[in-house]
């Protein structure tokens, strides 16, 4: 498992393979230090090949897959049963991963999902235990203490979307691997506890049975006897109040007959299943959105979109207008149109044979990106692939997506965004520019024109930010959502305490 081996075959599948074949007991430290650079090859390899291979747009999925596999491994090799330590370990890994490639927001998403998973497992355990000894006997003190300390958010708003991530991924990743010693602005970071004690942090979760965030103002300051029904019980939302701190408290719970590791690993496997099935689940909606004889405009080589269209093609005949997304995704796009399969240069996942849309009897017209406006007046629907979806309903997608969405808006054409839930990020786009990655100028201007590049500042943005008001509908593996509802989907999938890794 020398890093050199990875450099030779830097594809996703080779990485996954190498994960499997890793000796059972490499030290975790070594494992992480090995794995964190692996994220860079994902992008580096692509950019460095960009003379031939464009920077792939859809590296969200490879990254997600790699991260889950990696975390599964990390959990598997984690020794001990202390949930808090496990959380800390995952965080640590997550921080390194995200700082290695901060714009690959999906990595952070997966890490947060796994963290949430651990918390959930612990919460369930806590519920059981609390139910078991409902008359708050021996552990009442520790529990109440933990609650007073952990219900720190005065409005203790469970809605995640609303709890902001001040974490701006790039800046902090660049400056310092943000750790919890960066507390002042972190709304839900445990660092806050130390900084701003009882006034804000104390809160009786039970102030109202329906956890009423707006009632935060009236909450109890420091009542010691908050010991009745545990928080997790009352509403799923209130689970979010269990933070790392009370995980520590709960360490003794886990001592009993509770296999934290196994449960978490099961959860991660479920996550992997979700990643596997996400395209098909999304595609299940296809017939609801594509009618016969429609003209659909799409872009990039997104497998999600292709699967979506193929699903519709089974029943209906329509026309697809495909922008080639020059200069960063055109080869993959052409490849998809010809073969139906995204050619990632290292065609290692020889799964089932893909059929191109055209083979399914669908008319496909490939156009250069400049034609978008000219064509748009004939288009019935625009389907966009995405790189990351942000909590405010905006998205980051392949460059060109913004002008497509805007042109669609101008022509009153509905814009549908197809995205797996795993691409939904709790990160709030304070500064959109930080999420935009710039690619190699060589793919814009061939290297033969060396003098050109010397004289002229050639820019090759790889991503566009598309604001929420240009999107009409999101289709995820959970169904269709209005952009204004995304905050809730995000809230359902991440725990507020994990937003800042």
């Amino acid at each position, binding site marked *: 498992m020398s890093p050199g081996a990875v450099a030779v075959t830097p594809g996703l599948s080779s990485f996954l393979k190498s994960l499997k074949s890793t000796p059972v007991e490499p030290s975790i430290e070594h494992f992480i230090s090995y794995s964190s650079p692996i994220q860079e090859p994902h992008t580096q390899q692509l950019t460095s090949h960009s003379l031939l291979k464009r920077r792939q747009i859809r590296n969200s999925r490879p990254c997600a897959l790699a991260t889950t596999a990696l975390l599964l491994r990390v959990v598997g090799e984690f020794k001990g049963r202390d949930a808090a330590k496990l959380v800390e370990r995952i965080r640590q890994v997550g921080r390194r991963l995200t700082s290695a490639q901060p714009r690959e927001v999906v990595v952070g998403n997966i890490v947060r999902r796994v963290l949430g998973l651990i918390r959930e497992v612990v919460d369930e355990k806590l519920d059981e235990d609390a139910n078991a000894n409902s008359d708050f006997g021996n552990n009442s003190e520790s529990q109440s203490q933990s609650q007073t300390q952990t219900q720190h958010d005065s409005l203790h708003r469970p809605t995640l979307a609303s709890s902001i991530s001040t974490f701006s991924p790039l800046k902090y990743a660049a400056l310092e691997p943000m750790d919890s010693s960066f507390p002042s602005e972190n709304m839900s970071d445990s660092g806050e506890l130390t900084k701003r004690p009882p006034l804000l942090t104390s809160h009786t979760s039970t102030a109202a049975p329906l956890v009423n965030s707006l009632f935060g103002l009236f909450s109890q300051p420091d009542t010691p006897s908050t010991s009745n029904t545990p928080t997790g019980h009352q509403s799923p939302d209130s689970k979010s109040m269990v933070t790392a701190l009370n995980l520590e408290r709960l360490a003794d719970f886990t001592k009993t007959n509770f296999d934290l590791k196994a449960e978490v690993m099961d959860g991660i496997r479920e996550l992997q299943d979700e990643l596997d099935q996400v395209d098909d689940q999304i595609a299940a909606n296809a017939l609801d959105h594509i009618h016969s004889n429609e003209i659909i405009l799409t872009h990039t080589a997104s497998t999600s979109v292709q699967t979506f269209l193929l699903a519709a093609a089974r029943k209906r005949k329509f026309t697809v207008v495909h922008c080639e997304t020059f200069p960063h995704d055109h080869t993959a796009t052409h490849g998809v149109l010809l073969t139906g399969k995204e*050619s990632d240069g290292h065609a290692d996942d020889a799964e089932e044979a893909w059929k191109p849309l055209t083979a399914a009897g669908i008319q496909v017209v490939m156009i*250069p990106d*400049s034609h978008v*406006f000219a064509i748009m007046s004939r288009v019935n629907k625009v389907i966009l692939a995405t790189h990351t979806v942000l909590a405010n309903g905006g998205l980051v997608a392949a460059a060109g997506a913004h002008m497509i969405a805007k042109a669609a808006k101008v022509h009153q054409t509905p814009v549908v965004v197809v995205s797996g839930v795993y691409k939904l990020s709790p990160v709030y786009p304070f500064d959109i520019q930080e999420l935009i990655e710039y690619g190699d100028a060589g793919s814009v201007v061939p290297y033969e024109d060396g003098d050109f590049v010397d004289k002229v500042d*050639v820019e090759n943005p790889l991503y566009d930010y598309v604001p929420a008001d240009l999107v009409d509908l999101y289709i995820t593996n959970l169904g269709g959502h209005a952009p204004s509802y995304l905050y809730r989907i995000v809230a359902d999938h991440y725990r507020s305490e994990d937003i800042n890794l």
Partner: protein
Amino acid sequence: MSKTTEGEAVQPPAEKIAEGDLKPQTESKVEAGVEDKKPQAAETDRAPKLSAAELKKRKQAEKQARRAQAKGAGPSTSGPPTQQKGPAARDGPKQQKDAKQPAKEGQSRPLPARRRPSQSEVPVLEKAKKEVKKETKQQGLFFGHLYNQPRQHSMVGASKDVHPAVLALGLQYSSYVVCGSTARMVSMLLAFKAVIETYQTPVGTSLARHLTSHHLSPQIDYLRSCRPLSISMGNAIRWLKDIIIKIDPSTPEAQAKRDLLSEIDNFILQRITAADELIAETAAKKIEEGDVILTYASSSIVEKTLLRAHNAGVKFSVIVVDSKPLFEGKRLARDLANHGLKVKYLLITGASHAVRDASKVFLGAHAMMSNGRLYSRVGTALVSMLANDHSLPVIVLCESVKFTERVALDSIVGNEVAPADELLSESERKDLLPLKPFLPKSVTARADEKDKSEGGEEAKDSPEDVLKWIVDSPNLQMLQVLYDVTPAEYINMVITEYGSLPPSSVPVVHRLSTNI
């Protein structure tokens, strides 16, 4: 022309028969009418190989196409891509045409129907033709109506009437060497000067009556077959015909020709050179210290404006947004950079980022429509839309000679379809080669078949194959049009030689400028 040679090798030799009876014929004609070496060279290059049946079919199709076109536009109209006829163009020219047709045949000039097939003999065209056929069938929704006329890529089939200067120019048109509305118009007028110089009025007719219909028309037809005429060319042709008609029949021929030539020079000077000066002067004043001027593709007048402002010492920078496949902006960016301007270069996919940094947008025009819309290089509408979204002023620089009475609402009704195989550059095709094993069986099978039939001694994976894959992929097609229509509401100002106006005033100026 490299395609030609490649394609040539591809052709089964059996079809050479068809060439036999055509080639000498055309060749002799060309030689008869043309002294230049160039066409001859092209002649040898050319290898028309079509089965007789195919030939006939095509002949017919093209005849029809041509007729329809002639009906629509008349020889005198600018062939605006849609072939919409302007009211002015309708009466005179059409009658002219009708009157002339028999005369032409009587003079044993080659029939259009005879001429045309040989034009399209170039093998590349055959490929394009195949695609066109498919596209017309499938593409009814979009641009089916625009596929009626295959693009002329060589001068081989041109009538012997076509002047060598025009022949050369036609090739430059179709290969985009001469590109841009203004440049095409000016070069056309210059070529026509050459045509007029060598013109001699046959006995029994007058220059005024004969020149236009019998001598200029074939030139125009040829140019149109190379690439549909630009609006500016149409306007210039109309003007020229008007002048010719007005020549007093009593004027001696030498005098009339001299007059005509100086008129043409004058026209170029007035409507283009001087106009450009005026526009550049006005527009350059709009550039302020610290501005970031965004422009799309390449416009000569925009370049002139930018350089003028730069030479005047204004500190500003330029963002050039460009698009494939023509990459016109690349040359502009390079030129500007060579003049010491700070230039940023992005492709259209990055346009959203470009407008963020820009402070003003300068655009060139192919034409300004009478409903205030801008007809320009495809992608212009996107850039203007984004700029408008960012509240950037969008300024169109356009000589009044490019104004037209035509109107358009979208970019679909009137447009120019370009061969789709231009879309994939050599390197892009190369990038796709590794995909071969993943192609659907049907496509590879067909491709292989072809390989075999070609004798297949050349490397199987030549970039050309990729085009074949696309052609052979059922239901897959590429589309390339050259223009789009920018809504008037995205345009803040149109600068012409008459001054600056809102897009709504375009018809006013158009009327003014044509009535002068």
